[in-house]
């Protein structure tokens, strides 16, 4: 819980700085966050590779690993279908399509914009950014109350890159490979599922 608060604080300070326009042009132009992410991923790779336990899960879990992406897809889509009657501006299939982004906001919002218009595209963009954000901010909380697979499922397609460091940190090295396999499968499925749900 303490970690979620620290992470949230850093994020809010960033937003305040961003809206105030005080941040230097240097930060925006150099795409520093991309390099920071690459650096972080390298560190995470070293940290996973140095721990013998992280390799063991591949032998122990075997095909059970595939249940994790299946869980994420079922959980997300069932819940999106259930909530769609409550939403005024989004129908069932649009709701499923937005859910099928699984946090992969760039690709899913582009496909949805092209196939269903800008209005839904922006909702998809926001919804999937929020999904990634909530995972980044609340992973310690999720692990505590819903177990070590929870942040992997919450992270969706991002569990192999942007949310991987925080998942590894709080679910442990044993779950790092599961997160990578999960994120890779969902990343491949995002364009397929978004297209499929919109054409229903």
């Amino acid at each position, binding site marked *: 819980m303490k970690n979620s608060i620290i992470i949230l604080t850093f994020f809010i300070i960033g937003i305040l700085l961003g809206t105030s326009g005080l941040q230097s042009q240097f930060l925006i132009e150099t795409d520093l966050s991309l390099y920071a992410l*690459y650096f972080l991923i390298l560190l995470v790779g*070293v940290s996973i590779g140095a*721990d013998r336990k992280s390799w063991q899960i591949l032998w122990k879990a075997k095909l059970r690993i595939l249940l994790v992406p299946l869980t994420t897809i079922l959980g*997300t889509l069932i819940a999106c279908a259930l909530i769609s009657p409550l939403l005024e501006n989004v129908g069932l299939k649009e709701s499923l399509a937005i859910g099928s982004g699984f946090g992969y906001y760039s690709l899913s919002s582009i496909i949805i914009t092209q196939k269903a218009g800008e209005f839904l595209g922006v909702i998809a963009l926001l919804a999937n950014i929020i999904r990634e954000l909530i995972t*980044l901010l609340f992973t310690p909380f999720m692990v505590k109350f819903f177990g070590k*697979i929870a942040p992997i*499922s*919450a992270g969706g397609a991002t569990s192999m890159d942007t949310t991987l460091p925080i998942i590894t940190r709080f679910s442990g090295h044993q779950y790092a490979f599961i997160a*990578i396999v999960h994120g890779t499968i969902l990343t491949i499925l995002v364009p397929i599922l978004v297209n499929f749900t919109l054409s229903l």
Partner: protein
Amino acid sequence: MVILILIVGLIIGWGIHQNQKLVTLINKLIIYAIYLLLFLLGISVGSNSVIMNSLPTLGITALLLTLAGLAGSLLLAWLLYKFFFQDYEK
């Protein structure tokens, strides 16, 4: 690109696993790098006027959809963990 960097990291990690001091240092660095990344993400969200302006209206719909999707995922993930994974941690 990410996968490539990750693989390089895994190989380095495999190589240095006996140097526990270095591994501990890297694990500490990771949490600070996470703070830095969230700070930078905040700046990019805050300075993106399209996102900030559409937040009040479309944001509510987006938030509801996300919260529903997350609730569904977390619930099933909890069951999966409890019945299929918890025992295999030891």
